[in-house]
């Protein structure tokens, strides 16, 4: 839809303009005078390219040209629920621990995705994160957060 292209191009244009102006401060760090070797060269090239391509998309969108053949709507309910789940996952990961947090997230996602057998949800939510934890914690020495189970889980 050209409306979506319009929004996308304006956002990218804003990002490009901001980055172009902001990277002006890097050009002469440590007295390397010419812009050819300053730290701002590549950010400016990249943001300049972003500005040009965004303008092309913007002009095409204003002229009614779009490569979006069918409506691809964003289901905001689903998006916000998923966003909430991943934010909660991140916030709880360290204090609560990997296994309990992953089990909770797994259970919620399973229900959201249509699984209605409670015993399946409970068993899978516990077993799957536990197996992954064991493989990574004991098998590969990745120090995943233990959280509330730190006194129960034997350390490697």
């Amino acid at each position, binding site marked *: 839809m050209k409306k979506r292209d319009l929004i996308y191009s304006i956002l990218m244009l804003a990002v490009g303009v901001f980055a172009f102006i902001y990277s002006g401060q890097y050009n002469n760090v440590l007295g390397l005078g010419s812009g050819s070797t300053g730290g701002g060269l590549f950010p400016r090239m990249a*943001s300049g*390219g*972003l500005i040009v391509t965004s303008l092309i998309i913007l002009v095409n969108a204003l002229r009614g040209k779009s490569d979006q053949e069918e409506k691809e709507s964003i289901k905001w309910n689903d*998006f916000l629920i998923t966003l909430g789940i991943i934010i909660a996952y991140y916030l709880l990961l360290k204090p609560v621990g990997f296994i309990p947090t992953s089990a909770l997230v797994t259970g919620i996602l399973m229900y959201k995705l249509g699984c209605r057998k409670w015993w399946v949800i409970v068993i899978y939510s516990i077993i799957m994160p536990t197996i992954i934890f064991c493989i990574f914690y004991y098998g590969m020495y*990745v120090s995943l957060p233990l959280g509330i189970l730190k006194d129960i889980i034997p350390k490697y």
Partner: protein
Amino acid sequence: MSDVMIAFSTVFTPLNFLLLACGVFGGIMIGALPGLTSTMGVALLLPITYGMKPESGIVMLLGIYCGAIYGGSISACLLNTPGTPASAATTLDGHPMAKRGEGARALTISTISSACGGLISGILLILIAPVIAKFALKFSATEFFALAVFGLSIIVSISNKSIAKGLGAGFLGLLLATVGLDDITGALRFTFGNSSLTTGFELIPAMIGLFAISQVFLRIENNARGEVVEQKKYSVIPTKSDLKTIATTATWSGVLGAFIGAIPGTGGDIAAFVSYNIAKRTSRNPEEYGTGCPRGIAASEAANNGTTGGTLIPLLTLAVPGDSTTAVLLGAFTLQGLQAGPTLFTQHADLVNTIFVGFMVANVLMLILGLVLMRFYVKALNVANWFITPAILILCVVGSFAINKSYFDVIVMFAFGILGYFLTKMKVPVSPIVLAFILGPLAEKNFRRALLISRGKYTVFFTRPLTVILFVLAIISLLLPTLKPLIDRAREKRKAKQ
């Protein structure tokens, strides 16, 4: 000949063969999990080789290396998430093929192509390693910059319908790759006072986010009731038609991968994209690429596994690692009290022969294991969404965290995931962002290095033949999508006149 027979007998002792097989299998599993790389797999298992004989330990690590580079294609094809950066290009055709119900076929093609690329690079390693090493060491800052530019020109190939959107994504990726400490001046770019951004965005969490987390959003949105695509049955032995289709592509991609792998500082990811681009550009039907084209998978996979032998060339001949995994392998040599380089061939010729034979056997084992296990992998597509989506999410979190034991990497992954979701909704391809992320730093570092060495003279980019050749290839690659329709039209007009 007797040396070769001794090497074979060493590799095929029960212990060594078992270690090699376990290495290949473990490598495939590691590669298939997003977030775990071949470098990580080799590094994690390096310490256990301390108590082993050199031929046992090094051969096992080679098995992990080969298996992991191939393993990335499994999740690339089935879940649209490259297991390793080297398989990022495989998603372009592997996943579309799986989406239309041909997941088994996609995996078979990737397995055959990976083995082909690996075996070809092994043959080149054995026959002409010193020659290739000499060529590879001719690469200086200007050649690296030109190679990166050529690689970036591939963005036009993978931009699908809108080149402007694809290029825009590429420029966005280049911009995001500049975040962090500038190597040359020490400036902190776009960190906004956040110390976690000093090292910039890590490639693996960004890639996992763009591909996998965005898929989690889409799976929840599109498939709430657990609908699955019916997968067509495909024999373990590939069809003659498919073999014929991919044979030439897999062969030259393997050779290309070996040469690119021999250049220190490159790797399977660069080789895969370069090979994919060449395959598409030279194809009679380039519009098939990106829709599930067998040659697209073959080009990417043969090239990325072709680098496994290629990276061993400078390692063994000059003690210069070809990529990050061989840098860790160099550590394995040190652990065993060995010195890689020219003296290895004279003082430990038997070990070198064992490495050659072990490498070839590893690729054969990878082929067998890949084909046999393929039907189990494909079942992942037949399971309900509620079974696989939570597992993908959790593996992504673990994979991102495991790299630096950093929670910040988990945030990066989620942020890029949200970005990837919205870009997908806007019909903006995400592969150019990953490509720019990989090649942007290579391009910038070497561009500025070349100018520093030449004291600001831009003529340095036009005086070295190899650099000029790569620039010309990049220009052709950029202009071909525009020029090809004009050339085809002129040809049709000429035919009509005749």
